[in-house]
């Protein structure tokens, strides 16, 4: 369902990018490439943080399909 990187993944990668840029042993092309990646991830992280929606779903076991589960919105 969710395979895209999480906010945690983004922040971890950003830390790594900052460290690599600060270490300064990169060819200029690589430095610019990871900088651009960092800017992209920063944008994603900010978008995620701005997201104010708490989603609540109930997990229901689908006995008809053996081990299946399905999700239904649950009113908080």
């Amino acid at each position: 369902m969710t395979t895209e990187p999480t906010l945690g993944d983004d922040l971890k990668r950003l830390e790594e990018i900052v460290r690599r840029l600060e270490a300064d042993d990169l060819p200029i092309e690589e430095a610019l490439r990871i900088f651009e990646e960092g800017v992209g991830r920063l944008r994603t992280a900010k978008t995620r943080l701005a997201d104010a929606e708490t989603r609540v779903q109930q997990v229901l076991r689908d006995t008809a399909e053996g081990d299946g589960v399905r999700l239904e919105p649950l009113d908080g």
Partner: protein
Amino acid sequence: MSGLDDAWSVSRLARTLKDRVESEFPATWVKGELVGVKRYPSGHVYFGLRDDLAKIDCTIWRSVAARLKTPIEEGAEVFALGTPSVWEERSALRFNVVQVLPASAVGASAQNVERIKQSLLADGLLDPGRKRPLPEYPSRIAVITSVAGAVVRDIITVARRRWPAIELLVINAAVQGDNAPGELVAALETLALLDGIELCIIGRGGGAKEDLAAFNDEAVCRAIAAAPVPVISAVGHEVDVTLADLVADLRAATPSQAAEFALPERAEVARQVTMLDTRIQAALHASLTRRSERLERTRDRMASALLQRLRTAERRVLAAAGSLPASLERHVRRPRERLAALGARLEPAVTRRLIRLTATLDRDAAKLHALSPLAVLGRGYAVATDEQGHVLRRTADFKTGASFTLRVSDGTIPARREAT
């Protein structure tokens, strides 16, 4: 011993006894057998509690009787929680009971919990080293509880305040009663079927102690230990620690506290993101600046090496100009042309420096030209030299009758000093 004059009234004695007894005794658990149970239409229940040697009259007031779960049955062995009191009208001692638990169940249950705990310990499930760290920025967490309870609502309230961008997947399970252990285990097993779950909160709202049984169940504890993600227990009881609390990765006193443990503070993370933004910009800027400085240093070294050669050439030109006035133009021009050609190939900074140098050379050449004797002669002066070539500077140098040579701009004229 008191005298007759200050004899107490009966009521004073009764009240004093009551005050003493009630202030001396905190609420106390007493174990005994229920005897002479009487229920009155008012709803109050009266009985005796006794063991082999003693007996005490007990009262359960209507309000307490209404919520008691343990049946008050003749002959039952119970634990009774209460405070002793004196009924003043008869100076009769009474034990006012507020809670009753069947002794057999309590004993068996406590022993059972201890047995399960030893079994969990033996399997290493209570090792502190087993505790898994919580995810730092969860986006999807599971909540195992009864959807009928307040747990989900409590967690949502905290989530909206701290970390709104969260998805809660609620797995319904009874948290008390006979079905609770089985449903809790099934819910814990469901975790493995859910994608992207990073954490699980298992819990219930607050309640009385006997409602905690499901959280001391061995199968439930083992299912928590086997959960594919870290588990926070939130059994909703400040005082009693359940086995589920011990086996969970983290214990929270309430579901709200569990949510606070589970969720970071958005404002704090936003500050962190802003800081990363600043650092990443600064790091790239610093990196580019360092590279550009290295380039500049290289260029400066190249430029100064070139300038060194130019200065050497300049000195040689000036030296040549000084020693060979007659062929000044030719000697100045050739190096200057070479320098100009060289300058054209250099990068702009060096070129600018070259242009300045060339201009200096031009000015110096002009100066040299102005100072050359030929130029002076061109303005109408003449130089007199004797036959040995010595310049004749003053009248005394001109001997009467002596010949000398007068040099003007385009040649020489033979001359002789006449007698004065």
